[in-house]
């Protein structure tokens, strides 16, 4: 069972070039950290996939084990874990995130 969840997550992050696991949805974030991450992503005006972990307890638990990271949101680009809210905001502020986003959406 637990392994199935990890496999499902693995497929999700590989099928979606930009994949955000968050609390709530981009339109209605249910947590300040998720909202801040959505705000950064929206500023690039590119499409991205997201999953509301509040509606999927198995993923909510599984994603933490998948990345060995205890918190949500979690952003994946091209199947790789990039970071949580603090790292995303910091990378955005330093201009380090945009090249990754552009490369993922143009590639």
């Amino acid at each position: 069972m637990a392994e199935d969840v990890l496999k499902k997550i693995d497929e999700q992050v590989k099928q979606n070039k930009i994949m955000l696991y968050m609390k709530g949805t981009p339109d209605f974030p249910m947590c300040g950290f998720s909202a801040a991450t959505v705000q950064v992503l929206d500023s690039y005006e590119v499409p991205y996939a997201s999953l509301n972990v509040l509606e999927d307890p198995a993923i909510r638990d599984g994603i933490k084990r998948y990345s060995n990271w205890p918190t949500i949101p979690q952003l994946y680009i091209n199947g790789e874990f990039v970071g949580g809210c603090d790292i995303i905001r910091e990378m955005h502020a330093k201009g380090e995130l945009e090249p990754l986003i552009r490369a993922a959406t143009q590639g």
Partner: protein
Amino acid sequence: MPVPITAEEIHSLITQAIPDARVQVRDTTGGGDHYEAFVVSPSFSGKTKVNRHRMVYGALQDAMVQRIHALALTTLTPEELQQEQSANVVNIQTRKPR
């Protein structure tokens, strides 16, 4: 419900695990559920942000999962701190405002 954690406990868990770290923890809402931790350590050198944060989360272990509702993290090496301070990006408070 698990016992709420205090800023002092967060501080001591981090410094136990990363002894060379300078740590500042702030209760951002005053409600004991939203914290902000500022961690400066030479042992972050050469590590990605993800791995630095993993070190801090590792220090907090079960508390992170069970007792901490929200924790904003900043992890810097002493050199990075100096750069950021001179660039005025980060304003480290040396005293508590209250």
